């Protein structure tokens, strides 16, 4: 009688509705999609974890350059292997849902972009971020000179307290001025 086994209980469903931004239909759909990812044995386990490789086969994540980061951020696994339980999966969908607030979205965006998990976006993070955006092969990457110019530009604009990195509040400051961030930071099943 685990959360991912068989059907979702009514109490659980309403609890999920309370704790996430998802509607009932969305939760049920998420549950359906998640159980499809489970193998036969895992279906009987109460809190089954789906390894990252299988999560990444989802159509919605397949062509996303940040897919591994997304899994890592939302995973509550102790091994930090990016595997997701159903609740982690709901967390992911909730943050990326239509009705999530800008604050939530920017918080998670920050964590996704913070590749080394140190709480700030430093030059290394920004470089990785830009590489993800432009494509990571050698011919799609920006040249070192371009990258330097770009990162200098970014820091000049958004690093308000001039400490050489972009922290969460600076990041949210930038994001809060772009309402279409909410519409593009979205993954709907």
């Amino acid at each position, binding site marked *: 009688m685990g959360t991912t086994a068989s059907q979702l209980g009514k109490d659980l469903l309403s*609890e*999920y509705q*309370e*704790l*996430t*931004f998802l*509607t009932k239909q969305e939760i049920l759909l998420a549950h359906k999609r998640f159980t499809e990812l489970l193998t036969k044995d895992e279906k009987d386990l109460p809190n089954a974890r789906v390894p990252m490789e299988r999560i990444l086969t989802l159509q919605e994540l*397949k*062509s*996303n*350059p*940040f897919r591994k980061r997304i899994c890592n951020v939302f995973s*509550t696994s*102790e091994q930090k292997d990016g595997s997701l339980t159903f*609740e*982690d999966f709901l*967390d992911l969908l*909730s*943050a990326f849902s*239509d*009705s999530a607030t800008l604050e939530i979205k920017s918080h*998670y965006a*920050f964590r996704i*972009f913070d590749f080394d*998990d140190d*709480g*700030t976006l*430093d*030059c290394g993070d*920004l470089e990785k*971020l*830009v590489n*993800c*955006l*432009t*494509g990571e092969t050698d011919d799609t990457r920006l040249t070192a000179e*371009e990258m330097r110019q*770009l990162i200098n*530009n970014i820091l000049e*604009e*958004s690093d*308000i*307290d*001039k*400490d*050489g990195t972009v*922290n969460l509040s600076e990041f949210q400051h*930038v*994001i809060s*001025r*772009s*309402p*279409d*961030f909410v*519409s*593009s*930071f*979205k*993954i*709907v099943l």
Partner: protein
Amino acid sequence: MEEHHSVNVTSVLSDASPHSTLSLESCEYYQTEIFDQLPSIQACRPGRSRQGVLGVCEAERGSPQPGEKRSDGHPWTRAPRDKASLQPLRNLAMCIEAKRGARVRRQMEISNIGYWESWRRSQSINRKRVWAQMRGSLSGMLPWKRTLRVIEGRFGVGVKAYFVFLRYLIYLNLLHCALVWGYILGPTTFYGRGNSSKPWRFGSKDSFLQFFNGSSYLNQSPVFYGFYTRGSLNFPCLHTPLLYFAGILTILFLSLAMVVRRMTVGLKHTWLLGKRYSVNVSYKIFRGWDFTIQDPAAGTLKQSFIRNDLKLFLEEQSFSQREAKRTLGQRVRLYLLRFILNVLVVSLLGGAFYLIFFATETSLEECGHGWFVSLFLQYLAPITITFVNLVLPNIFRKISSFEDYSLTTQVNTTIVRSIFLKLASLGIYLYFLFKTTKALEQHQCKENRFGREICKLSIFNFLAMFFKTFLLEFPRKLVQEKYPTSLLARRLGTQSFLITFNVLDLVYSQTVSWVGIYYCPLLPLIGIVTLVATFYIKKFTVLRCCVAEQRMFRATSSSVLFHFMLLLGLLMAAAALGFSLLQEEVTVDKMSSCGPFGNGETLYNVTGVCVDSLPSLAQSVLRYMASEAFAVPLILTEIIILTSYVSRGRVNQRAILRLEDMLVTSSSDKRFLVRQHTTMLRLQRELRRLRSASFREDAAPSVAGKTSRPPPPPPENEAD
């Protein structure tokens, strides 16, 4: 050795001195242990932490039962986040387990506070939930959600913005329809029309052709102005003419309010805030990725788009540097070139306007031709306008590429020129229409005539779009699919969806609809039909014929642009309407013989009668409001309000500057203190090591004679 050691300590010190470079400094700053313990870091720290300070999720992960036990060092309990306790749980950025914990904590808190307070809180939560559900079900009723998502997934947010805009226009027209029914059509159907008007039926002598060019049968139909004569509803202040006018006015004002509202929402974000701080690159990076993209091909495309965009930005940066370095000769040559090209543009525009004038004149001269020729002549003016509007923007696009502007300026100049062309050609057409219809004989209903022309224009606009899709774009795509290697296919190239030009088309048709609504009240209905058809046709075009574009538009900035264009169109429509009404007043001798203001009535004397019938107080108030004396206080109040807003804005700006300064100082203070703390820690550790080492040496007399000497200094990073 002694010397060596002291040098090492000073090197530690100097390493952390404020004179070191920024990167070194920040490196040092973020690698210190105390950094993890700063409250500001803990508040926004993700689950993982290095130094054993448990993060949000981390703390919850260990406990199998939600809310079983809570560690005292939990950042959420310590962090001063009062506003968080009132937020709905789903607004907290943590995992579900952690939210469960927070809920238990909140329930405990609620039991601590009084009954009344807990009831109030639960009520507010319930209310919020009901609202959220209502909003959810309302947004579920929006049509075409699925289609929009498919389009968004393949073509990005920009193209979706076009379709959302289209849907918005459909709503707007629906609203117009409702208003037209309420103000104009409804009263007329209930109370009937005047006895003098002819009955409305399909005469036997009306030919198909006449139906098509809308002369006889349609002339007396409710489609046009002439149908609405004064019926049995005949109070001094409530009769058909006044209702008619009020209806049109309401429609225009409501549209104005809606468009301005939509525009300011976007504008607030892009201009007022964006101007002060340029955060262009950060935008491009931080919200660069469109997470809705599902198609791998679209994903690679988006990546190449972002790459091009960034390269473009860097190029523009160096372009402006190059621009500053231009020599005088180069500058003169460039300006000369631009001047010549602008002359070319102006002459093209002039030619287009003359063509429209010529076509309008020819089409309004009626003479005996075959039915086909006469039908063609009837539609000549709309054909010309549509043709001009199809061809010239593309020419403008080509021209602006020669002008050596930066790319954004190029796009913008093209847009501005195209807007000008569209609206001006419409304006010219209307002007000549006014002039020529005024010359008509007395017994003809010239408002109907005018309405008919507008109707034709809007129908033809739609037909042009239809044929362009199915005779031009679709065959082009077919050629490319069937013979991808042929010369023709390579020549034609791939098609992309030019958002701005498509939006311009929409704005244009909406403007036509606004201009014509006075003469043809059922135009919104026609508008809804054509817009819905447009939606499906454009969906077909996008999904079937187009490939995603290299250069995509940002949704917000483009939606501001869309609504700004719409506003321009609306203003033009209002100006045209006002102009025509004024003209009617001036030429009283040639009063219209039909419609609500048929029997020698004008807007002025009808409203005059209405005002006279009101009680005296209301009368004097109205008369005062209409007089010049009212204008002075009105303008004064506006000035005061504006001044207060401007000064408030200035004060806010100054406050922002000061806060920014404060932020910089406090962060540098923080940095300094952290550094100081680290050096002190290191020194302490060094000293302890020294002391223990010397103690050991004291204890071991076998190494006697060297007691006074400290041991060799440890490697520096051992302290970390």
